[in-house]
């Protein structure tokens, strides 16, 4: 297994796209989060207190962009092997396919989690610098964001896990369809259909149903720290729904990988 992991690690780190995608993940997440945070201030509300802005979630809005890089990174680790036919060599060197898949999953998850941790900490640092200037001060009921606060730590830590699960979801679909464009098109459609539908759905029951059972919106419930009662699904159960999708995709990928010729 160690050899398999080392092989996968070598393949991933020596491809130029990996570096770009990690950069896009960190940069996209932090920059979007910082811009979003910068664009919201308490003067838009009747009173600073009545804003009741979820500043933690606001600071993590970059997740919407960052996850696209994760989807691409994870899918590419398998689809490029199929497109360059390297996969045959890989499986000749190590015929135990489940071990190859497990090694891929481990390496992708490790890279994504590490990059996600950096992104999330960067978003936190940016928000701490920006929020007080926009009126979100302790005097107005917004103490500085801190990981010592339970819900805040859950939101930031959970976002790292969210990125990891998105990586596994994309990896599973990539193994199953073996084609970069197809995998990206499918994963991105599945992820983004719900939040877009939510913008248009006028019926709150239908909207809650969509938000509860679709991978992105359920998973991102982990970022909420205010008005938790209004959420259609709780933070951890939401992340659980996403984990279910990721597990389903990995299972599908594993079955296809085991059964179909490379």
């Amino acid at each position: 297994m160690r050899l398999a992991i080392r092989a996968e690690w070598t393949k991933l780190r020596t491809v130029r796209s990996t570096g770009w995608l990690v950069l896009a993940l960190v940069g996209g997440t932090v920059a979007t989060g910082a811009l979003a945070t910068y664009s919201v201030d308490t003067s838009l509300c009747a009173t600073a207190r009545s804003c009741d802005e979820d500043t933690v979630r606001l600071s993590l809005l970059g997740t919407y962009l960052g996850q696209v890089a994760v989807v691409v990174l994870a899918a590419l680790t398998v689809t490029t092997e199929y497109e360059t036919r390297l996969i045959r060599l890989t499986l000749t060197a190590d015929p135990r396919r489940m071990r190859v898949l497990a090694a891929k999953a481990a390496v992708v998850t490790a890279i994504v989690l590490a990059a996600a941790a950096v992104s999330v900490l960067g978003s936190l640092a940016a928000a701490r610098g920006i929020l007080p200037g926009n009126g979100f001060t302790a005097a107005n009921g917004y103490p500085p964001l801190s990981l010592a606060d339970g819900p805040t730590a859950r939101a930031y830590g959970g976002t790292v896990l969210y990125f990891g699960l998105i990586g596994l979801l994309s990896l599973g679909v990539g193994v199953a369809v073996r084609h970069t464009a197809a995998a990206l098109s499918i994963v991105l459609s599945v992820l983004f259909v719900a939040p877009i539908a939510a913008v248009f759905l006028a019926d709150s029951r239908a909207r809650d149903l969509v938000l509860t059972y679709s991978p992105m919106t359920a998973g991102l419930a982990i970022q909420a720290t205010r008005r938790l009662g209004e959420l259609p699904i709780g933070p951890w159960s939401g992340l659980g729904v996403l984990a279910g999708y990721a597990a389903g995709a990995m299972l599908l990928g594993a079955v296809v990988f085991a059964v179909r010729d490379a």
Partner: protein
Amino acid sequence: MTARDGFVQILRGEWTKFRSVRSTAWCVLLGAGLMVLLSALVAAGSTTDANDEPAEPIIADQFHFVHQPMVGDGTLVARVSSQQDTGPWARAGIMIKQSTQPRSRYAAVMVTPGHGVRLQADFTTDLAGSATKAPRWLRLTRAGNVITGYEGDGTTWTEVGSVTLDTLPRTAEVGLFVTSPSTAERVVRRAGGTSVGPDWRLGTATFDNVSLAPASGARPGTWRNDDVGGPVQQVDGTPLAGSATEAGGTFTVRGAGDIAAQPPSPGGDNDTVRDALSGIYIGLIAIVTLGVLFATSEYKTGLIRSTFAASPRRGRVLVAKALVLGVSTFATGLVASLAAFLVAQPIQRGNGFRPPAYPTASLSDGPVLRAVVGSALVLAVLALIGLGLGTILHRSAGSITIVIALVVVPSIVGSLLPIRVETWIQRLTPLAGLAIQQTRTDRFDTYIAPWAGFGVLCAYAAVVLGAAFWLLRRRDA
């Protein structure tokens, strides 16, 4: 062989390549299918009770009232020394009212910033006085059930009008009032939901020379003050309470609200045509993929070298590709948007979106036709952006990611940010092109005019295709 024959040949070659690839069929089916599916889902998940609202007018009765009871006949005089201009119909004046209960009977004479002096009664009577603003003297007399309002400059009085309130009790509340109707909308976003409502602002007015003279000769009592109809609430639930202070005979009164019978709203607020075409947000992912693959798959398989060997004028190859892709994605998009419109409309009608609040949208209406055909145009232009990016980057992953990052991500992030921020996101990103789906211009989310938005999208396409054209001629294949 003439140059024109050469181009037709290139065009035919590109068309053959385009239609004989399996991924084309997948992208077309997935794009059109998902678009119709999401549109149907949105229609099924949106209901309205716009047609169930009562036909009679809604009576608004919210203001700040500095009042005391007066038994029997009498006269109230006050001078409005100043009034803040918070809208043409902001009101400051004196009133006699059955009680402090909202919707009870009243008569009042008042000044307004935009409509001069008025005498209003029982929500529907509205008599115009002179076109003067504050400062102005006002006088209200009760004689039995007849209330007469006067205005003056301090020396002479002019009658504004008189009204009969036949069931006014012997003891009625009299006093000073200030109110200010909202003149703007406030949009609040919370937990993914958007609420739209009036944006209330307190209006301020000052009064002096206040004197109450009951005909009975009784001494006037003390003034009390209340928000009649409760303080107005902003759409986020924050109450906005009025206030009144008195110093040396000058009253400063602040209040917000409206005193009027509002006609029932003529129709619902939803743009049903745009909602019926909302599936485009997902359909475009597959269509963009189609455009990207049309360029990148040739690079991946090395076919591009044969293509350029056969027709060395590379610019023409790109033009031919753009033509084939643009026409076929427009056709696909047109079928998909027509299907989405036709599938969603009956579902919407079943969910309450029907006349009179929602007149049936017909393809013979200009804006509706523009929205349906425009959706197909947007899909075609996005496919061309995909083709351009694929030609520049040679990689499908990067090209698809960039389009998603420019179109899909901003639409979601924008919907979670304040409206002021979303406005600029919707104007500056390629998302602006989707403004072509608007059929109503009175909604809070009309960020940019339909064709102007489409122009923004086309500008992106022109830049990307221009760069692709230039690079294609300079670089090795």
